[in-house]
C-alpha cells in the first residue's frame, strides 16, 4: 500500500498544470520536507512500468508522461515535434549544461552572438532568466525551464545526456553544480 502522503501529493500533481514546488507540496500535504522526499520517491517508484513518471526541475515537481508513451500522446494531441535549428540547439546545450550562465559566456563558447537566439528560446519557454550574476552591471543569468525537461524527455537536469569521450571543457565557470537545487 502506498502512503497517504504519496496519494495526496499525487492528487495535487495530477491536477496541477505547472510544476509544484517541494515546499508547497509539503505545506499542502502537511508533511515535513523529509517525509515529502520519502513520499516523492515512493510516488516516483510506483510509476515504474507505467505511462507516467515524476519529473523535477530543481525543486519543482510535475507528473509527466513517459518518453515511451510520447508518440501516442503526441498523436492524440496532434502535437508538433519541437524543431530547433542546429545553432539554437548549440545555444540551448551551452545553457542547459552550464546553467546558470551569462549570455557572454554562451557567446564566448560558441564564438558568435547569441542574444537573439536566447530571446527566441525564451519565447518558446525553453530558457528562462535565472537571476543575475554578482558582477558589475549585474548581468542576467540564464537557465532552462521545466518545459525544456519535458521536450527532451529528461526526468531532471541530472538526466542530461553525457558525452564521455571528450576532455572536460577548460575554464568552466560552474562545472558540476548546474543540476543541483
Amino acid at each position, binding site marked *: 500500500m502506498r502512503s497517504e502522503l504519496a496519494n495526496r501529493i499525487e492528487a495535487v500533481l*495530477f*491536477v*496541477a*498544470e505547472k510544476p509544484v514546488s517541494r515546499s508547497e507540496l509539503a505545506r499542502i500535504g502537511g508533511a515535513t520536507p523529509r517525509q515529502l522526499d520519502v513520499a516523492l520517491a515512493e510516488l516516483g517508484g510506483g510509476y515504474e512500468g507505467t505511462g507516467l*513518471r515524476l*519529473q523535477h526541475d530543481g525543486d519543482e515537481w*510535475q*507528473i*509527466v*508522461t513517459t*518518453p515511451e508513451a*510520447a*508518440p501516442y*500522446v*503526441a498523436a492524440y*494531441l496532434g*502535437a*508538433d*515535434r*519541437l*524543431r*530547433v*535549428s*542546429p*545553432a*539554437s*540547439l*548549440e*545555444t*540551448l*546545450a*551551452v545553457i*542547459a*549544461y552550464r546553467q546558470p550562465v551569462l549570455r557572454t559566456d554562451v557567446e*564566448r*563558447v*560558441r*564564438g*558568435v*552572438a547569441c542574444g*537573439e*537566439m536566447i530571446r*527566441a*528560446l525564451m519565447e*518558446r519557454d*525553453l530558457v528562462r532568466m535565472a537571476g543575475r550574476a554578482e558582477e558589475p552591471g549585474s548581468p542576467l543569468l540564464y537557465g532552462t525551464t521545466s518545459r525544456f*525537461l*519535458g*521536450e*527532451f*524527455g*529528461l526526468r531532471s537536469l541530472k538526466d*542530461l*545526456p553525457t*558525452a564521455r569521450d*571528450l*576532455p572536460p*571543457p*577548460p*575554464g568552466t565557470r560552474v562545472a558540476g553544480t548546474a543540476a543541483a537545487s
Partner: protein
Amino acid sequence: MREDREEAPLIGARLPRVSVEGFEGPLDLLLELVEDRQLDILSVRLGDLAGEYLARVRAIGVLPADEAASFLWLASRLVLLKARSLLPSLEPLSPEDEAVSEEELRARLIEYAAVRQRAALLGERIRSGERAFHREGGTVELPPRGGDTDALAAAWSRVLAIAARARREEAEVPAERYSVEQRTREIEEIVAREGSVSFVTLLGADPSLSFAVVTFISLLDLYRRAMIDLEQDELFADIRITKKQAPAAKGAGAAGTERKGSVGAQRAGE
C-alpha cells in the same frame, strides 16, 4: 546533412546565420576543418589551418557584418599563430596578445567540440521523440488574493461588467471620444489636487464603455509609470488611487499626504 524539414516552426530559423556550408560560426568552421582532415584536436597545429580556413571563409560569400567580424577575428588569430610558428623569435606584443595563444584557442575549440556534441545528443532526443507531456490548460485561474494586482484584476472585471451594460446603450448614443493621453492628464490632475480618489468616482455615475476602458487604461499607464499607487481592501471592492509616495513612505496609504500643492487629502468618493 542537417536534419529533415517539417512543418512546425523552427526555433532560430528566422535568425541571421551563416549556413552556406552549414557552419554555425567560426569555431564550427575550424572544427569542421580539423574533423574533415581527421586531425587530432589535441595536437593539431592550429596555425597550419589558417590557409584553408581563409579559403573556406572566402567561399562563404555574403556574411552579415557581425558574423563577418567573428569569422575574421578567428582568421587573424590563426594567421598570428601561423606567423609565430614560422618565426619563433616573434614575441607576444601585449598581454592581450598573449591571451590568444595556441593553447587558449585550442581550449576553446575543445570546449566548443563538447558543446556541439551535447547539442547533437539533445537533437537526437528530439528526433527519437523522447519527450514528456504534462497536463495543460483547462483549469480556471482564480484571481490572486491580496495586493495591487488584485485591484487591477477586479477593476478589469468591473470594466467588463460596465462594458456589458454599455453595449446596449451604445447602439443609440453616439459614442463620445476620449484619448488615453487626455484622460491620463485629467487623472493626474485630480490625484495631484485631491491626493487620493476612488475608481468609482473616476468612472462617474454611468460611464460609457469607451470612457470606462480609457479610464482603466490610463490608470494602468499611470501605475506602470509609478505615478500612482493602487489600494484595495478586498476583492471586487472599490480601488483607491493615491499619488505615488516617496519611496521611503511606500505603502503608507493615502493618509497624511503632505506635499506642495496638496494640503491634506480630500477623500473623494467615500
